[in-house]
């Protein structure tokens, strides 16, 4: 059931409906990479050989057998889904088990779930991607989508903020992206050891200097909720219509299919009506404390 008024492109993603939606599919861990002190990227190979097709911004319920499940955004390339890629931060509980998985381990996957970024809605205009911290992980598929269809878009701008240089995700890729002529990249950190040559400050600062044309901009924003609110307010102040600012919201999720009730934000079930939602839909909700 959709509750929004804006039109959405067909690449927002269709939730997979399995015979039993609570039964996971086995995926074998094929490769892993430690990204930062508390974050790991996993590459998973479907045991039954069926790649998990997904839209940028969707997530899966990733399971450690006998331990539990957590919702994790897919951080891979929607155009090359044969290996399922997830970037996971250790925040305790199930994630602590997942970040310690070894190559060869089998994990359970349910999904893909949720409404994605709808990158194609930015065609014919500019797209600005604003990521904070681990928020770059669910935005990476959107960036890859944008770069794969670069001729459909005008300016593509990435603004990425992290706590410190050591916390930057995908640094090699960031460097490669910064070299591209079809992508503008601005990275900033909260603080850095001396010797760091990059920007220190908030994401709103390079965003302000990007010279965006609000009439042709689609903004995709992901990061801590306070950061997303600040960035969203900033964009709206600059004239970007709220319906053209999309946030990826997060709440406690136990089922991923709209049945357990945990992820509700007033009338929205973030697992089926989100996690990507337009600011026009959600601005009145995220400004009420403890809603």
């Amino acid at each position, binding site marked *: 059931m959709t509750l929004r008024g804006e039109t959405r492109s067909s690449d927002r993603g269709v939730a997979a409906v399995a015979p039993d939606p609570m039964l996971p599919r086995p995926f074998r861990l094929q490769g892993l990479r430690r990204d930062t002190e508390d974050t790991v990227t996993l590459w998973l190979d479907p045991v039954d050989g069926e790649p998990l097709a997904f839209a940028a911004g969707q997530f899966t319920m990733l399971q450690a057998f006998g331990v539990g499940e957590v919702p994790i955004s897919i951080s891979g390339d929607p155009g090359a889904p044969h290996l399922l890629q997830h970037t996971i931060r250790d925040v305790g509980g199930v994630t602590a088990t997942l970040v310690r998985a070894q190559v060869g381990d089998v994990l359970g996957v349910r999904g893909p779930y949720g409404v994605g970024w709808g990158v194609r809605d930015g065609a014919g205009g500019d797209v600005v991607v604003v990521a904070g911290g681990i928020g770059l992980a669910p935005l990476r598929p959107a960036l890859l989508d944008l770069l794969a269809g670069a001729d459909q878009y005008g300016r593509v701008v990435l603004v990425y903020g992290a706590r410190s240089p050591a916390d930057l995700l995908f640094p090699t890729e960031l460097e490669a992206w910064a070299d591209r002529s079809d992508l503008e990249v601005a990275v900033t950190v909260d603080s850095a*050891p001396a010797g760091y040559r*990059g920007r220190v400050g908030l994401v709103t600062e390079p965003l302000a200097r990007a010279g965006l044309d609000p009439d042709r901009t689609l903004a995709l924003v992901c990061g801590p909720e306070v950061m997303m609110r600040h960035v969203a307010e900033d964009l709206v102040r600059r004239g970007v219509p709220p319906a053209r600012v999309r946030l990826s919201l997060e709440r406690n999720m136990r089922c991923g299919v709209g049945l357990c009730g945990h992820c509700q934000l007033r009338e929205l079930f973030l697992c089926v009506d989100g996690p990507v939602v337009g600011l026009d839909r959600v601005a009145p909700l995220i400004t009420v404390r403890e809603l």
Partner: protein
Amino acid sequence: MRTMKTLLEAHPFFAGLDDEAIQLVVGCATNVHFDPDQYLFRVGDPADRFYVVRHGRVALELHLPGSGQQVVDTVEEDQVLGWSWLVPPHQWFLDARAVMPTSAISLDGVCLRGKCDEDPALGYAFMQRVAHVMYERLQSSRVRLLDLYGGGRDAAR
């Protein structure tokens, strides 16, 4: 080639100042250049000038015993660096180091401050502008103080 007057008139920090004030500022301005890792000033130095960065980047650093030198802010192109020329005790609180080849306009704060003491209207005009720079820096610092990216570590889910 643009004159100093044209450059300063075009910069948002000086917008709205009357011609006499602009002339005064031009009279106090020089072009300066810094190589990477060259310091503009150090903690404790008398704050007798301020800068408008034209190209490059300046890192503002504090020394933390144990963690060493930390960059707490950077000043980018077209941003203004320094308010201690107008705000007592007129001493730099941070180290400022160029992290890439940087060219800037250096403005003689002592001279301008003297003029501000004599002419309250001029002083108010500069104080407004300096307050705005401080406001933006403060807000940026406050939000970063929340450590939004770093939070949320807990043992049990």
